[in-house]
């Protein structure tokens, strides 16, 4: 800060004036548009009943366990194994989608080929197709007697009912995230940047890693965090293909569900609360990443 003569009175007066002007501007606005009480009332009642109440009830139930019991449940060997399977498979699926999603976005933006618009529309299929439908379809494809499962089994690779199957299901359900975050950035990319690299004699690979990739990174990170978060919470597509063996192919969401079916409600609440907290953390991360990505796209 530069040393400027700032008498406190002057600053206070200026601040007060600015605040008063702001207040006046706001008051005018508030007077002009009607409907706030009704719209806000509907929103608050809905949000309180449908969103906040259940999540608060879950947290309350989990908290009423007491720290010792809570810790015992969420750190049990079986729960821990489920976190490991879920997190590692989500990581693998996200890495696959990072490469596949970026290649798909690249092909859709940079190349012209017959059927491009159809492929572009199909990218959203994993969001439109109900997860249970995706689950039985992928299981049928990758089971040992399936279209893809049979040849893979001949090579000694089992997909369905192994962690590999979980990775396939997670990849499927989160394909659109990275494609749809990278696509607009690629479209907006200024060709002059590449041409500058070319005139300086850089190879295509050097331009891609040195010029294009850094520009795509914020969008890629945003897509990666969305994709990873979705994979952590996915249930429907996975339970059909996973085999659901405790300690090896049991995901955390399923464990919460199984505890419920065993009428072990406190355990279910505790495990669900772990998932909820993870979701909060991932929400903060994705928002941070998206804010960064938007900084790069909007100013383009």
């Amino acid at each position: 800060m530069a040393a400027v003569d700032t008498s406190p009175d002057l600053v206070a007066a200026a601040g007060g004036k600015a605040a008063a002007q702001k207040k006046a501007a706001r008051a005018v606005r508030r007077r002009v548009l009607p409907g706030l009480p009704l719209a806000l009332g509907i929103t608050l009642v809905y949000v309180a009943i449908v969103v906040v109440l259940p999540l608060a009830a879950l947290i309350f139930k989990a908290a009423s366990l007491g720290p010792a019991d809570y810790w015992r449940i969420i750190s049990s060997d079986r729960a821990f194994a489920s976190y490991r399977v879920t997190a590692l498979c989500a990581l693998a699926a996200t890495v696959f989608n990072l490469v596949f999603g970026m290649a798909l976005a690249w092909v859709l933006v940079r190349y012209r080929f017959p059927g491009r618009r159809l492929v572009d529309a199909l990218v959203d299929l994993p969001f439109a197709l109900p997860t249970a439908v995706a689950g039985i379809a992928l299981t049928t494809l990758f089971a040992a007697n399936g279209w893809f499962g049979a040849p893979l089994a001949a090579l000694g690779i089992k997909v369905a009912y192994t962690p590999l199957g979980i990775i396939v299901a997670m990849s499927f359900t989160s394909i659109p995230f990275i494609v749809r975050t990278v696509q607009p950035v690629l479209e907006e990319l200024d060709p002059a940047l590449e041409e500058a690299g070319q005139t300086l004699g850089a190879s295509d690979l050097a331009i891609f890693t040195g010029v294009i990739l850094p520009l795509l990174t914020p969008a890629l990170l945003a897509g990666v965090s969305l994709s990873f978060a979705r994979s952590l919470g996915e249930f429907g597509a996975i339970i059909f293909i996973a085999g659901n063996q405790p300690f090896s192919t049991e995901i955390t969401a399923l464990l919460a569900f199984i505890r419920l079916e065993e009428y072990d409600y406190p355990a279910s609440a505790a495990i669900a609360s772990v998932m909820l907290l993870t979701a909060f953390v991932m929400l903060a991360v994705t928002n941070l990443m998206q804010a960064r990505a938007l900084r790069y796209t909007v100013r383009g």
Partner: protein
Amino acid sequence: MSHSARRRPPRVGDNPLFRRALLAVVLLLVAVMIVAPLVVIAVEAFSRGVSYFAASITDPDTRHAILLTVITALIAVPINTALGVAAAWAITKHDFPGKRLLTVIIELPFSVSPIVAGVAYLFVYGLQGLFGPALQAAEIKILFALPGIVLASMFVTAPFVARELIPLMQAQGRDLEEAATSLGASGWRTFFSVTLPNIKWALLYGVVLCNSRVMGEFGAVSVVSGNIRGQTNTLPLHIELLYHDYNAAGSFAAASILAGLAIVTLVVKVALERQGAGRVQRPSALAGADSIVPEVKP
């Protein structure tokens, strides 16, 4: 020399060999990961012939599941649409403290696993939950009945309409509405003749996506419905039931209905995107909308 100088230099990745190889790999993966699941649904659905397919679809339990799914959507989608419009109106046309927090809360269900949503509802309306004993005493059934299914569906799709409308209405600003009200139009008239025409495609877009998710929701509904065959089984749950009954053809026949819905959704989505829906940059809830107001070109 002059001939090649006039042409633009090839862009990065336009080497014909690389281009062909990348295109082949990507299209192969699209075929395996996206097209094959669709094809296998159709093939399996008709694996025991057309008559078996028809019998599966018209089976009373399947018909009941379809009916329950449609009823759920008919209740949940209009309510969520009303919420989306109300929330977007309040958030984009007014200033009030806690606006950012409200935006985050509306978007929250998008980040919460459907299973967590289902379990959470159990602790509100279940016997071991907050209101369970009181509801039982009053003989009101919410869980393992239609109200529970509708509530769980509403939770998972709460943000769908709002997240399409908020960025669009933010970008459109308040000038038109302020002009209308200062000319004496009532709030409702302003909404219906000024705001609604400007947001209709985005609104429809949100409704279509919301409907698709409500009809296909599995995890959350699976927890709160109790899976009672012919009573509280929605179509996705019925698919699971048939699949575990080793009735693959019947299961895929039921699944083909939802796959058909997914394809219709995609077609409508593309058509609406041509009208400009779904194209506004989504603000992130935590970053706050003020940071991304699009530049207005003169």
